[in-house]
């Protein structure tokens, strides 16, 4: 089971000392937080994508490449990459590049975001949000699996003989998660392709998560990727850990009460009862997280939102010490002891995917054919591409 953190990349005034960090500080600090995540023994750092203040993560692959370069084991991923307003061709290119530079220590999560105004900024129409997401992924899926793609859809320019570069590392596409709160079409798409399904698990009561995950599992089995229990599931979550439950609540309360999304609404106590938010002592947080498995089954990735709502970086780093030092080791042990042996402990890593594709054989390493002089290689772009390479007579 993988554990990690997910950042929204919000830059929020600290309600306790009234301090608002600069963009430069928050960007620098998220890299510190990511490095610390690895140091304390966690596995994953995910970052969201936003295109307006008060957020900074407009260019996740640049940020994640930097984090990957400064870490050894960490898997970098997104929470989420906008599959709606990004051109799937750019997603294919940028994330394949990240995959090469991180040595395969990456995957990505596709979502539709929560900011309506983004659509027109990128020339799209929010009313088409769902069909955009579905169609864009269909294309992305092919761009990473076929050297040469002919494609025509409803939302972007048709492609004829297009090759997305670089080809994925070892010609094995990155693992993809589809994130959704209550849209069965997204879960269906994840199941159809045998991809992972990630439930936000922050703003909604557990009944919603349970329903969606069950649906995804059934459909995963329906499409023949394995049994329902073997489907690849990830969950979000939120924690704040204290020495005692009272201390945790006292310290977290001002940040909760002023949080951008749910602040000035339900009380911390009500929200903790109705949602997966876990605020309390080490043992209380462990108990609550252990409960997630009861309604989603054995799952492969748990991400926590811990660097938001104006929480100062020092406090986030301290939370990581507690999470990595005291909470996650217990969770790993207890969840591992309960895990059904037929269910994978982790989502597929790059190494797993290479092994699944090639066994013990050497992975394919695409080498382009020569530039024909017009900066293209034609319909047979690689030396091992199927189809005959055009031969130009020497005149």
């Amino acid at each position, binding site marked *: 089971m993988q554990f990690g953190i997910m950042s929204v990349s919000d830059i929020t005034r600290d309600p306790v000392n009234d301090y608002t960090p600069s963009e430069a500080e928050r960007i620098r600090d998220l890299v510190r937080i990511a490095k610390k995540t690895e140091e304390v023994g966690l596995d994953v750092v995910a970052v969201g994508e936003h295109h307006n203040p008060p957020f900074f993560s407009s260019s996740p692959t640049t940020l994640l490449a930097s984090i990957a370069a400064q870490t050894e084991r960490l898997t970098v991923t997104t929470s989420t990459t906008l599959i709606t307003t990004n051109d799937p061709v750019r997603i294919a290119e940028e994330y394949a590049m990240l995959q090469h530079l991180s040595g395969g220590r990456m995957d990505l999560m596709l979502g539709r975001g929560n900011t309506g105004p983004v659509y027109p900024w990128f020339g799209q129409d929010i009313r088409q949000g769902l*069909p955009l997401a579905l169609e864009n992924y269909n294309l992305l899926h092919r761009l990473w699996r076929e050297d040469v793609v002919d494609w025509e859809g409803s939302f972007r320019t048709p492609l004829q003989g297009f090759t997305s570069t670089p080809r994925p590392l070892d010609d094995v596409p990155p693992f993809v998660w589809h994130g959704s709160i*209550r849209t069965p079409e997204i879960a269906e798409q994840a199941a159809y392709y045998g991809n992972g399904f990630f439930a936000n698990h922050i703003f909604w009561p557990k009944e919603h998560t349970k329903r969606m995950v069950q649906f995804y599992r059934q459909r995963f089995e329906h499409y023949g990727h394995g049994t329902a229990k073997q489907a690849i599931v990830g969950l979000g979550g939120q924690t704040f850990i204290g020495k005692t439950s009272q201390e945790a609540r006292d310290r977290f309360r001002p940040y909760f009460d002023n949080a951008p999304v749910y602040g000035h609404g339900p009380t911390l106590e009500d929200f903790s009862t109705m949602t997966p938010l876990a605020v309390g002592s080490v043992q209380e947080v462990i108990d609550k997280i252990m409960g997630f498995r009861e309604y989603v089954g054995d799952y492969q990735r748990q991400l926590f939102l811990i660097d938001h709502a104006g929480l100062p970086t020092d406090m986030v780093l301290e939370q990581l010490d507690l999470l990595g030092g005291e909470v996650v080791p217990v969770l790993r042990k207890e969840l591992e002891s309960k895990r059904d042996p037929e269910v994978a402990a982790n989502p597929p890593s790059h190494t797993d995917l290479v092994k699944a594709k090639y066994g013990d054989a050497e992975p394919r390493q695409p080498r382009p054919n020569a530039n024909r002089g017009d900066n293209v290689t034609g319909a047979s772009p690689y030396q091992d591409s199927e189809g005959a390479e055009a031969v130009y007579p020497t005149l």
Partner: protein
Amino acid sequence: MTHDPFRLVVVSAGASDPSSTHLLADRTAQRAIALAREHGRDVQLSVIQVRELLPELPQALSSQFMGPKFRAAIDTLVAADGIIAAAPVYKAGASAAFTGFFQVLDNDLLIGKPVILAATAGTSRHALVVDEEMRSLFAYLRTLPVPTGLFAAPEDFSSTALTQRIDRAAKELVLLMESGFARSVREDSWGSYQHEYGSAGGTEVGVNFDTDLMRLATGGSHRPT
């Protein structure tokens, strides 16, 4: 099955106890129960006092979080065969508590259910609130409001005309409950209404795979091997 008791649910947004809104709703409910019994059907009456749900209303409005009392109220409404919805009118419209309660319900929770719309006010100047305001909200929710709307200002409570209107509305409600219209809609044409996954109070978990979106979700018409 026809011998099951009707499940009649009163939703009353009266603010005080006793309140004239509760009083009007209760008189109407008792009349409907009596009429149903004359037709050989028993009635199981549930009363949702919106006032008791008010502590949970702000978070339901702001973030769709339904507290335990709200969820119990929704479960009661899911099972309702008929509804009596009664609002006090203070300022030219049904009270905020009343509209707030119905605003946060799933759009498909009450489809086809017969409803008596009732309102009380301190003056008869508010008399058109039932038919001009409340009726449109219940039309949006695709309920079946009975033809007779009930409105009572203080002077009406002692008039036989109100009693007659209550009797008329109750009769209309019983006839609509007897027709089984809501159940038939649920059984025969439920899919033709718009739903979201998990809507209708968490009961809507059927997924239609025969849609353009579902075909797109599964790679369009082409399934890669």
